[in-house]
């Protein structure tokens, strides 16, 4: 299980989904705070899920409120960079550019959501791995 987790993690790094910030977070974890990364990731997912749904809602409406969207994206970008989700961050930046430009179509190409999903999968896997360790 651990190996699996490690592999997934590595691939995420390789693909650019995670960057060195994530490593920083891992370094913050220690015996006194053994689940730090997990806690942070969980928090991130919750928060980003909320943000994403806000964004989707904003996109569904007929007229895009670019300012609001920009705000959401900014928040999302902030979270993502803090946790080291670099691809998400990149997508957010792009998205914001679209917002600025007022490019409605740009909004629709939002693959980041999928990436976030992948990230979440990874985290879930890692969490499972940890649980397994604990039980072991």
């Amino acid at each position: 299980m651990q190996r699996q987790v490690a592999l997934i993690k590595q691939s995420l790094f390789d693909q650019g989904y995670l960057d060195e910030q994530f490593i920083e977070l891992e370094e913050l974890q220690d015996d006194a705070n053994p689940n730090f990364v997990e806690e942070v990731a969980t928090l991130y997912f919750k928060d980003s899920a909320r943000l994403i749904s806000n964004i989707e809602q904003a996109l569904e409406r007929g007229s895009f409120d670019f300012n609001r969207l920009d705000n959401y994206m900014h928040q999302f970008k902030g979270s993502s960079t803090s946790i080291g989700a670099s691809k998400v961050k990149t997508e957010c930046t792009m998205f914001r550019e679209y917002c600025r430009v007022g490019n409605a179509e740009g909004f629709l190409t939002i693959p980041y959501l999928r990436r976030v999903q992948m990230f979440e999968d990874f985290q879930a896997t890692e969490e499972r791995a940890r649980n397994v360790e604990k039980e072991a």
Partner: protein
Amino acid sequence: MMNPSQGRGLGSGGGSSSGRNKGGEAVVEMFPSGLRVLVVDDDPTCLMILERMLRTCLYEVTKCNRAEMALSLLRKNKHGFDIVISDVHMPDMDGFKLLEHVGLEMDLPVIMMSADDSKSVVLKGVTHGAVDYLIKPVRMEALKNIWQHVVRKRRSEWSVPEHSGSIEETGQQQQQRGPAVSEDAADDNASSVNNEGNNWRSSSNNSRKRKEEEGDEQGDEDASNLKKPRVVWSVELHQQFVAAVNQLGVEKAVPKKILELMNVPGLTRENVASHLQKYRIYLRRLGGVSQHQGNLNNSFMTGQDASFGPLSSLNGFDLQALAVTGQLPAQSLAQLQAAGLGRPAMVSKSGLPVSSVVDERSIFSFDNSKPRFGDGIGGHQTQQPQMNLLHGVPTGMEPRQLAGLQQQLPVGGNRMSIQQQIAAVRAGHSGMLMPQQQPFPRGPPSIRQPMLPNRITERSGFSGRSSVPESSRVLPTSYTNLATQQHSSTSVAFNSFQQELPVNSFPLPSAPGLSVPTQVRKPHSSSSSYQEEVNSSEAGFATPSYDMFSNRHNDWDLRSIAFDAHQDAESVAFSNSEAFSSSSMSRNNNNNATVAATDLGRNQQQTLSGMVPHHQVYGNGGGGGSSVRVKSERDTAAMAFHEQYSNQEDLMSALLKQEGVAPVVDTEFDFDAYSIDDIPV
């Protein structure tokens, strides 16, 4: 790591920070650990990460996800934090707005952060006064060094000019540490301060007490624990100094040799150097009538009028500076001023920050209307740019004002009134100081420069304060030497001046060296008692932590906001000092004046509260002049000073003679010139 539960949740920081205050002393030992950080960010992920990182840096963290909550936390616990880190984009309040609020109300360093790294936003952070701007993702390395901002801020506030390299002005944000704390705690902290930046609390103390308590018993209370006690240039000490200088030859006297000749344990070369500088200026002033050290000088030479000038500038400056730096106990300032006032009590200028520059003139002119400090000080400001800077640091009265004052104050008879006035000025200054603080901290120009009375304003309050008091003190000291012999009480006051010496013109930011503050404490018993009182009063403020900072902060805060809070503390302090001073003061006839002054001082003090504790020491030390009751520490100092100086004229002449300087008319001497500097602001 730091206890995870600490500061968890919003608003829980209060608990941790307050807990820290009590045990602050212990925590301080390991600066920068224990730095109390408030983190504000609406992003929970980021908030959690930051908290974790900060805890790893051994900081005490409080997190907050709403700006409003952060503000209320800060307001409730003014001294509870050292630094604030805030996100730029927040839903309930713009980060920059929070930045402004914090800067104005609490005067804490604020670091902005954001995922947005566009230049315009970063620039906005700069223009709004953020001490730093971090780009997300925030790394540990960036957070590890945030303590530097705290130290830097403290330094600029205290602008400890000289020595005490270890004084780290611990950038403690905790301005609010209550003056009392600074005084008392400072001692404890100070002792450890000498570890560079180790004990940030102490450093603040150190800076406050930069001057080594040289031969000043009184200073012991403050400096007992300080590693670098403030040097109080008592009359005796100054005499030793003068003797050494004369032996070497004024022109040839170098600090090192003087130090050797004096052979005073604990005295550093820097102390001597700064004192020498002042002394030289003083001599120059005496010698060259037209020396225009800074308005004051001229005034000095020309007699009363002259004396006012230089005195004021000097005194005001020094005193203020001293006052600011807390080095000069307000009382000493007052004393100095009083001493200096022997002539026109220009001192008042520096003594009272209050409303800035009390009209020195007004102060002098009236004996009883001391309460004018506030006014006087304000007046000064207009007159002298310096004053403005000092805000509250009534650095020496502007020469103009002095002149006016001089005229008003007859040399002889009104000495007392002058003293009182000076005290008043002092108080006023102190008051002034406070208000000014805010602007100053932002970037007070350290005036330290040798005095020029005008310089004082440069001091910009913070630094000026410290220096001012010193300068003023110096001047009188020279005079006081003579006088002291005759009058113990007055001498005390003089001491402070003496140190300041001749530098009326010394704006004295460097006052710290002057050690006036401690001296003011007055070696005399009376003063000692006073000092104790003062100290106790300071204790009253007690904010545990960083004495220095807290005091400073207190002062500043008062100005900006916390007047109430401080006032309480101050009132406590005041009452103490008052009680003390009253007893001591009674000696001087300036009772009336002092009372009046005290009133003024009181008002001012309140604002000063932070500063007051320090100043109080000054005043009281001075000599118990009852007059100096000065509520505001400074006032007391001034008052005491005044009282002492009632005989100043004689003292001055004596002193001058001693110094080999033609005792220019007593009036001329008027320590006032000095005192002004000393005027504890």
